């Protein structure tokens, strides 16, 4: 079964109930370190971190140990968009050895709606490994969906002429001097330019999330953090949707305020994020059918 949008506590309860109802001997939890799941005591649980899945020393032992009375919990393992990645392939081999599988994921996608098929493969033991998302096919798996209605609220930040001049110069400089660097460094670096303008709008009583804490603010978190104190305002957007989705999953935020300057790059990041939310809603509507 695939359960989308559950809280940690709900996941723990779900595991306990499943173990009690199915005479489970042992539980393996596959999860990235920052999404470590807490499961009530009394159950024999082993946690395998995402990076360890492909390691030989874990891979063979797990293959040996997983049997018909083992529950495999795949928690927040939608980390890569390549459906045929080695880590997914290893997971599939574990999943093939037991009928007891619980798949927990906060959001059904990283970037594209088709990403959901990676979770679908986990639940269906990869029987439709080559097919994309379509409503008829989704009947083959059991999906329990608690949609998180994410919305963005832009807080406009005006920039002065000097910043806009600096922006134009920086853009030219970045493009001309790109050389062999990754072209994605152009928007990434330009986006940092609006930081100083946004600094004046930072409320010391609120929490913010940014690329890094280069301004040394006590209330600034980064997208790489393993937890957030509560609702955060986006100080600047991240480039990778996986980071954004991790932030939303860990902070459990639905309405996301964001400081957005009038520079083109900020508008581009805002539009990009809104498109991502659009794809998220599209995924939910496909799953509801």
């Amino acid at each position, binding site marked *: 079964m695939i359960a989308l949008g559950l809280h940690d506590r709900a996941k723990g309860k779900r595991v306990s109930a499943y173990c009690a109802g199915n005479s489970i001997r042992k539980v393996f939890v596959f999860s990235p370190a920052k999404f470590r799941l807490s499961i009530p005591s009394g159950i024999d649980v082993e946690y395998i971190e995402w990076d360890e899945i492909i390691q030989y020393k874990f891979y063979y032992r797990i293959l040996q140990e997983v049997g018909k009375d083992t529950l495999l919990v795949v928690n927040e393992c939608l980390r890569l968009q390549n459906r045929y990645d*080695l880590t997914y392939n290893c997971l599939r081999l574990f999943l093939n050895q037991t009928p007891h599988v619980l798949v927990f994921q906060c959001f059904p996608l990283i970037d594209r709606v088709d990403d959901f098929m990676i979770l679908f493969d986990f639940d269906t033991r990869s029987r439709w490994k080559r097919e994309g998302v379509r409503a008829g096919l989704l009947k083959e798996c059991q999906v329990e969906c608690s949609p998180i209605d994410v919305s963005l609220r832009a807080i406009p930040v005006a920039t002065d002429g000097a910043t806009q001049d600096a922006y134009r110069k920086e853009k030219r400089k970045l493009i001309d001097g790109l050389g062999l660097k990754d072209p994605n460094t152009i928007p990434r670096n330009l986006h940092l330019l609006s930081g100083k303008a946004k600094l004046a709008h930072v409320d010391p009583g609120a929490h913010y999330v940014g690329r890094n804490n280069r301004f040394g603010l006590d209330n600034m978190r980064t997208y790489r953090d393993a937890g957030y104190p509560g609702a955060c305002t986006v100080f600047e957007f991240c480039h990778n949707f996986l980071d954004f989705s991790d932030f939303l999953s860990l902070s459990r935020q639905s309405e996301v305020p964001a400081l957005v300057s009038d520079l083109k790059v900020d508008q581009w990041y805002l539009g990009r994020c809104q498109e991502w939310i659009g794809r998220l809603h599209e995924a939910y509507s496909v799953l509801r059918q």
Partner: protein
Amino acid sequence: MRLIQSYASRQTVLEAALGRMAFVFDNFEQIIVSVSGGKDSTVMAHLALLEAKRRGRKVGIHFLDEEVCYQSSVDQVDYLMNLFPDNTTRIWLQMEFRLTNATSVQDGQLVCWEAGKHKLWMRPKREDSIKFRMWAEEAQTVRDKRKGFGFYDVIENFERCYSGAAFLVGLRAAGESPNRWRAMVKNPVDVGERKVYWGTKKGANVALYPIYDWNFHDVWRYIHDEGLRYSKVYDWQFRKGYPINQMRVSSLIHERAFKSICDLPEFEPKTYNKLCKRIKGIAMAQETGKTAKMFACRKLPKNFRSWIAYRDFLLKTHPDQSRIRLFAERFSRHLNNEYVARQQCRQLILNDYENNLSVDNKPDPRDELIRYYEEVL
């Protein structure tokens, strides 16, 4: 116990392989198993030897010793050849041939077991090995005369010494590579009245792959159940947390295998020490084999402005004139952009004159993205 694949008929892959082995012994007088010292060939050889023992027959255990290999692999082959001595014909080839050395452009080829350099050999030749070519000089074939008499030339000439023989190879395709599976089964071979999909025709002989449908864990399960010895390299790699796709015992200096040198001092210090004395480029490969700048060619060295400039420099300064012509001729058929040039640098750095690391010859995908950002930002 679990962990063994089975067919719908409830026949396990082991039972299927035993059936295939019986079929091979029923249909071929001469059977030769090619071994490398890895886990797959260990299983293959053991299955063949068991069947030979049951029937009171002999099988050839064939090992082409390329001199520069793990000592553990050599020990493993020695072990296999002594498992059932009465049923084994030892075919341990220790003869001169050329092997690509990806770690040095100056010493681009290693002449294994080169005459006159016996003091530098990784180890002395064995008493029971075959040291001279078993075929007539005039009948000898060479795939590419510019490259010289290489690894595959030895194999091909050796196989031509036989007629109507079955060469058993521990090649597997299950789980790892659907492409390999397709390649393996697409040209079935006729044996008696049966079409055999786990084999291919090889001149007057056939190559057969009786464990072609085995998985990683089928192999390890068999080794465990039969109490077989296996190469220690697997244990060392296991302890270091190698991913499953990298945990293999292969050659040490080839363009696809040079990374194994990085951990060699830790695994087999004596082998590493001898290798450093035997051939150029080893210490360099040990230090930089896994870094982005050198052999991987993922990062441009800072004194070059572009991959094109770096490629031109590498080509211009290549110590071997014949190789320069070979590479230049090949590159003239490619597009001239940064994306392609980086791959060409990799071929030059790794001395890939055989074109084993293919170049993805297409327009640079970065250009379009840069144009897009210029427009929207």
